[in-house]
């Protein structure tokens, strides 16, 4: 458990100001983490991302945004889901919320050196050519993963690795798929859905396509990422700038 304690301290340091706004103490966060690991990780996983469709560390919850709403959900559970009502003392609800808030704050923090977001935006939209595949706030291509809120879903270090080593980790929802129809047409695109009988994907012309497997001669996953590595194409300072820009992308204002 020792390394977890160190991480908690780092998180508290990075997130100190944010947490102070909510009135949480480092003690709250530490107690909350303990409660989370014992009671919540069984379903949510230690990173809060093990339940389909739920990512606690994003700071954007499906059923709550305010602390009071979070409190109600932890207390009462969510009907129609496996989320049960929690059996905690009042101050423990507070501690759990403090930890959830600290998870969000820790996403922003990273061992990676962040550059200048404005410069990063210029590189992203210019020499990087990122919009040829990605889309941010309504601009760019649909083919690659949408990045409008990438700053709340991925840590800086993960983003840096994706830029330098795109094949290192490809999330399941970003996998590419390759099909050959009976007439020999070859289509490669981002996989949107797959089941025993059908395939749905976004093809290279940004069209939504659906296929019955019985009408396909071949179908298979594309193992490598279609994204090129920027190792050697951008210098370390430029990579840091792009990462800073990506971290700043927090979704559509609403």
């Amino acid at each position, binding site marked *: 458990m020792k390394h977890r304690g160190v991480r908690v301290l780092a998180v508290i340091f990075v997130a100190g100001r944010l947490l102070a706004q909510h009135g949480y103490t480092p003690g709250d966060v530490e107690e909350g983490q303990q409660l989370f690991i014992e009671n919540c990780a069984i379903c949510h996983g*230690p990173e809060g991302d093990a339940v389909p469709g*739920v990512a606690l560390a994003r700071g954007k919850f499906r059923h709550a945004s305010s602390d009071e709403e979070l409190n109600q959900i932890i207390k*009462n559970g969510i009907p*129609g889901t496996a989320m*049960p*009502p929690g059996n905690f003392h009042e101050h423990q609800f507070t501690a759990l919320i403090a930890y959830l808030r600290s998870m969000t704050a820790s996403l922003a923090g990273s061992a990676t050196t962040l550059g200048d977001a404005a410069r990063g935006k210029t590189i992203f939209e210019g020499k990087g050519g990122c919009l040829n595949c990605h889309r941010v706030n309504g601009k760019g291509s649909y083919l690659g993963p949408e990045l409008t809120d990438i700053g709340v879903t991925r840590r800086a270090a993960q983003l840096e690795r994706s830029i330098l080593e795109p094949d290192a980790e490809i999330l*399941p929802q970003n996998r590419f798929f390759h099909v050959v129809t009976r007439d020999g047409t070859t289509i490669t695109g981002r996989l949107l859905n797959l089941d025993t009988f059908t395939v749905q994907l976004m093809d290279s012309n940004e069209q939504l396509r659906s296929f019955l497997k019985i009408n396909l001669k071949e179908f298979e996953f594309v193992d490598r990422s279609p994204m090129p590595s920027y190792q050697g194409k951008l210098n370390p300072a430029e990579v840091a700038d792009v990462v800073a820009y990506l971290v700043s992308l927090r979704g559509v204002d609403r």
Partner: protein
Amino acid sequence: MSARVLLLFFVAGSVFAQVTFERILGADKEPQNWLTYSGTPFSQRYSQLNEITTENVKDLELQWIYQASSLEKFEATALVVDGILYTVQAPNDIIALDAATGRTFWTYAYNPSPKARPCCGHINRGLAMLGNTLFMGTVDAHLVAVDAKSGHLLWDTTVAKAESGYSLTHAPLVVKDKVIVGTAGGEFGIRGFIAAYDVHTGKEAWRFYTVPGPGEPGRETWGGDSWKTGGASIWVTGSYDPALNLTYWGTGNPGPDWNGDPRPGDNLYSDSVVALDADTGKLKWHYQFSPHDEFDHDSVQIPLLADLEWPDEAGQKQMRKVMLWANRNGVFYVLDRATGQFLLGKPFVEVNWMNGFDEKGRPIRAPGKVPTVEGTSIYPGSEGATNWYSPSYSPRTGLFYVSSWADYASIFFRIPVKYTEGRVYAGGWPKSYVPDGRAAENFRKDEEGRGSVRAIDPKTGARAWEFKMNDVTDAGVLTTASDLLFSGGREGYFFALDARNGSLLWKATLGGVVASGPMTYSVDGRQYVSVAAGHSLFAFALKK
């Protein structure tokens, strides 16, 4: 019509509607009905109905849909009695429908306590019936009896304390004049038990603790006071053999799930099948599938009873009363159901936690395969090779059928753990190998595991065939006397296979996860097949 004739008609009508225990025992002789959770007391989920065949199954069409006013998972298997279908809208509403049209006769609404904290959703898997009474376990650990004509409550018995983590999720089992249930809550440090209640009064008749207490045999398999929080929950319906007067129940994981340190020993009767005298609840025999389990290998599968030819000690084939069991731990078992003798054990998916059996049928644990702080890779993964969803056995094909999660692993983590009443008592967690598991369902590669329906020859444990699905499955299996097999999966397909070879004969897209066991019945000679998917119940029949 004279008054006497009218009276006779009235009496005959109400007598006919009574579901006597004799009718339940002979349920296979009236296949138009579905009188108990698994179809018959032997739990084969096999029907004698044969109007729908391998040739005409392609002509199945939707007859009606019942949309539940509930967003909970729909895991119940319906009962059908003389044209009336009874099922549960989660968490605990009983619905009586016209089985031919899906129109509602009545709804009984039970409001469970908000203190109920079932681990995995406010769900219910179905009902039991005797006479004109329906029985339902509730998520706040009550057992209720409801009048099947009116939907009015007859009695309500508190089985256990909901605040401590106890709940009832499975369909009760009626044996003679008793209704039997067991308690869920294996992730909350409960002390599991199976109990029988008088069908007329709801008064407890007997109770069998699945974790023995002081002075009881098996107590020595729990170090210290760990028996008090030992789990061994019950959340799937048992079976009954009238000739032996034994009722069989599968038991859940020991608590805490992933850290066995607080509970040194084998932890009887967790992850076991127990054979109980149906009149007294006394243990006749037990077999423990996973001694000192640390992988959440609940043995809450349906105890499927069959009579098979089996070689005796002299090698002569004799009819033998056996029990067939594909376990969450990845192994297929055949046991003698009179004695509990281990007859066969063979992995039916990839397994790495054990390396075969000793001469007594105890699994030999693979060294080093335990949850750790750093994480340990275990096959089968956290959801098991199969789970609570019903298997089937066809006496025609002689094959055992099971929905399974095939050939995948999870990483099992251990953490220190202490018990607090009503809180999770797990001691760790499993982690999926697929990164960002929340999005993985519809992007799954074959090597990340898959769902399948597997046919197993019970005489050898060998696989006869497999129907592969891209996604995993929580759907039960139904077979019929016309060699049809019905099942489904998380992709939302409901399909029919040829039970002899696994070939796909028909499918329908239901648009929601099939997490229930299909069943079949007939009304006025017309055969229906029914299954729940998403939040709705569907009924199919041949085009007229």
